[in-house]
C-alpha cells in the first residue's frame, strides 16, 4: 500500500521534473542516453586537458636535439626494483652494430636512473602566464644523453612523447580557432541570407556553391604556396587557420540559413510578430535558442574536419613548417618506408589523430540527436 503511494508520488515528482525542465536539461538527459557520445565527451575533454597542460606533461624539451640518441626505441618504465617500489628507467649505452658499423644507443639495464615526479626541466609559461620549469616526470642524475623515452625518439633525437604533447595543443587549438572563424562567418552570412532572402540570399548561396565546388587540396596548395617564406611560425599558423576556415564556413552558413528559413514560418515566431515584438527580440528570444543546439552540433562535426585539414596540409608540407610541432609535422617524419621499417614508433602520432576524430564524430552525433529534445 505504502509502496504504491510512494511510487505514484515519485512518478508525479518525475513528471514535475520533466515539466519544469529547461531545454538544456532535456538535452543533457537525452545526451546521457547516448553512451558512446558520453565516452567521447570524456575523450575530447581529456585531449583538451592535454592541450592545456602540454608543457607540464612533456618530459624533455621537444626542440632539444641530440644526434647520439637518434631513433631510440620506446622505453618502458620499471616500477619495481628488487621487489621494492622504485620507478626507474634504464640508461643508454653506445653500441656498434658489427654488421653495419653503425653506432646506436640502446638501453643498458645495469644503469638504473630513478624517476622523480614534478621534476625540474626546461622553462616554460604555464597557461602562457606563469613561468615555471616543473614537469610531470624527470630523472635524477644520469648523463646528458639519458632520458625517459616513452615513445622513443626521432632522427634528431627529440623525445616523441614530449613532441606529441605539444603537437596535441597546436593541432587542437588550430581546429578550434578555425571553427570559431568559420562559425563567425557562417552564422553571419547564413543569418543574413536566411533573414533577408531575395537577391542577397541568391548571391550568398551562389558564392557558397562556387567555394564548395573548388577542390580543396589544390586550393589549399595554392594559398599555402602564396604565404611568404619570411613569415614567422606564428604568422604561418594564423594564415593556415584562416585558409582552413575559408572553406569550412560554407557548411555552417547553410545550416544557419536553413534554420532561419524554417523558423521564419514557424507559428510561434508569427505569434511573437503579431504580439508586436521587435525583429531583434524575435531573433534573440525565439530564433537563436531554437537553432543554437543545431549550430553546436554542426560545429562539433566540423571540428574534426578542421583538424584533419591541418594534419593533411602539414603532412604534405603545405601547412605548418618545422620548427612548429603539430600532428601533421610529426607524421611527416613517418612518410618514408625505410624510416618506418627501422623506427615504426614514429607512427604513434597517428593514434591521437584517429582517436580525436572518432571522438568528435560520436560526440557530434550524440549532440545532434540530443539537440532537439522535442523532436
Amino acid at each position: 500500500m505504502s509502496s504504491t503511494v510512494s511510487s505514484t508520488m515519485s512518478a508525479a515528482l518525475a513528471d514535475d521534473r520533466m515539466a519544469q525542465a529547461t531545454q538544456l536539461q532535456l538535452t543533457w538527459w537525452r545526451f546521457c542516453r547516448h553512451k558512446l557520445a558520453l565516452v567521447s565527451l570524456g575523450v575530447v575533454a581529456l585531449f583538451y586537458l592535454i592541450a592545456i597542460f602540454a608543457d607540464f606533461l612533456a618530459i624533455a624539451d621537444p626542440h632539444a636535439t641530440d644526434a647520439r640518441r637518434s631513433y631510440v626505441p620506446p622505453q618502458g618504465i620499471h616500477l619495481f626494483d628488487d621487489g621494492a617500489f622504485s620507478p626507474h628507467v634504464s640508461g643508454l649505452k653506445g653500441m656498434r652494430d658489427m654488421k653495419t658499423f653503425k653506432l646506436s644507443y640502446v638501453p643498458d639495464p645495469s644503469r638504473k636512473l630513478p624517476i622523480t615526479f614534478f621534476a625540474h626541466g626546461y622553462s616554460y609559461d604555464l597557461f602562457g602566464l606563469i613561468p615555471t620549469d616543473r614537469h610531470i616526470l624527470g630523472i635524477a642524475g644520469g648523463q646528458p644523453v639519458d632520458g625517459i623515452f616513452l615513445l622513443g625518439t626521432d632522427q634528431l633525437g627529440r623525445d616523441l612523447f614530449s613532441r606529441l604533447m605539444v603537437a596535441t595543443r597546436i593541432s587542437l587549438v588550430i581546429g578550434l580557432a578555425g571553427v570559431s572563424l568559420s562559425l563567425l562567418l557562417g552564422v553571419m552570412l547564413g543569418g543574413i541570407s536566411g533573414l533577408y532572402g531575395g537577391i542577397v540570399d541568391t548571391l550568398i548561396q551562389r558564392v557558397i556553391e562556387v567555394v564548395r565546388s573548388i577542390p580543396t587540396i589544390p586550393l589549399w596548395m595554392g594559398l599555402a604556396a602564396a604565404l611568404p617564406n619570411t613569415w614567422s611560425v606564428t604568422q604561418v599558423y594564423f594564415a593556415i587557420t584562416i585558409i582552413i576556415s575559408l572553406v569550412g564556413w560554407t557548411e555552417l552558413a547553410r545550416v544557419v540559413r536553413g534554420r532561419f528559413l524554417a523558423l521564419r514560418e514557424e507559428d510561434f515566431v508569427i505569434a511573437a510578430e503579431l504580439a508586436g515584438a521587435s525583429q531583434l527580440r524575435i531573433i534573440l528570444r525565439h530564433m537563436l535558442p531554437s537553432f543554437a543546439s543545431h549550430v553546436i552540433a554542426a560545429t562539433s562535426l566540423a571540428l574534426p574536419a578542421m583538424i584533419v585539414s591541418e594534419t593533411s596540409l602539414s603532412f604534405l608540407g603545405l601547412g605548418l613548417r618545422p620548427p612548429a610541432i603539430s600532428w601533421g609535422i610529426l607524421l611527416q617524419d613517418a612518410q618514408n618506408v625505410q624510416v618506418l621499417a627501422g623506427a615504426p614508433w614514429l607512427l604513434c602520432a597517428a593514434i591521437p589523430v584517429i582517436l580525436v576524430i572518432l571522438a568528435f564524430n560520436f560526440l557530434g552525433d550524440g549532440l545532434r540527436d540530443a539537440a532537439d529534445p522535442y523532436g
Partner: protein
Amino acid sequence: MNVLEVEGLTKHFPIRSGLLQRETGRIRAVQDVSFHIRRGETLALVGESGCGKTTVSRCILRALSPTSGAIRFSQADGTVTDLATLSRRALRPLRRHIQMIFQDPYASLNPRMLVGDIIAEPLLVNGVPAARREARVRELLDLVGLPATARTRFPHAFSGGQRQRVGIARALALDPRLVVADEPVSALDVSVQAQIINLLLDLQDRLGLSMLFVAHDLGVVRHVSDRVAVMYVGHIVEIAPTAELYTRPRHPYTEALLAAVPKPDPAQRDAIAAPSGEVADPANPPPGCAFHPRCPFAVPRCATEVPALRETTHGSWSACHRTNELTLQGVV
C-alpha cells in the same frame, strides 16, 4: 458598429519560373472578397482547403500584404484605419488589437519558453509592468481553465487541448478588439474539440469577443458563429446568418458542403451526392462561375458570366445566377 470591414480584398501570388524568375502566371488566392464583422459578433469563414480562407485571415493580420482592396479596422476610440496599405512600422501599434489563435497547438508555442512567459510575452513587448503582468497571467490562466501552476511549466508538459488553451490565453492577453481563429480545433481530438468550442462560447459570453473563425468543417462552425461566409476558389459564394444558412442554403456549393457534414441518423445520409470533380485551380480558374463545372444545377449562362454577390433575403447574400429558382436542401 463594425469592428472590421473588408472591401474588395484581392490577393494574388505570382508564379515565377525560369532562370530570371519571370512572372509566368498568378494564383488568384483571394478575389474581390468583401464582408464585415460587427462588435461582439463571430463570423465564420468556411471552405475546402485551398479556397483562400487562410489567405484572407493572414491578410487581415497583415502577415501577408493584399494585392488590392481595403481592410478597415475601427479602434476603440472610433478611428478607422485601413490596414491594407499600412507600412510595417505604422502597423506595429495596431498589432495588439488584432490577435490570432493558431491551428497547430504544437507549433504555435515556443518549446523553449515557460507557459507563463509565453502568455506574458504580448504584455511584455507592449510595455506592461512586471507586477501587472504576473497578475494578468494568473487571471488569463484562470479564464481559460488552466491551473496557476501551469506558469512554471514548459509546453511539452501539456496535451494538445491544454496547449490550445495556452494559445487562447496568449491571444486574449492584450484584450484585443478582434480575434482571428485559424481552424483552432481542427488539429484536436473530437472530444477535446468540444471542450475548446465550449471555452470559446464561454469567452464570447463573458468578454463579448469579436471573432473571425476560419474553419473547413461546417459541423464545428454551427455552434460558435453568428454568421457564416462560404468561400470557393477565392470568392465568397454565400454569406448568411448561421441558422438560415444551415436550414435554407442559397448556393449549390453550400448545399454540397452541408451534405458532407457527418450525420448521426443513417436515414438522412447521402440525400445529396457530394459534388463530383476537382476543386478548380486558382491559377487557372474556369470562366464564369468557378463552381459551374461541379454544379448539378449549372446552365449555359454559368459558364460565361461571373455571378455577383446579391442580397436574397435580409442579411443573406448569395453569388448564384439561379439562387431564386432553386430550392436547396439544408440540414435540420
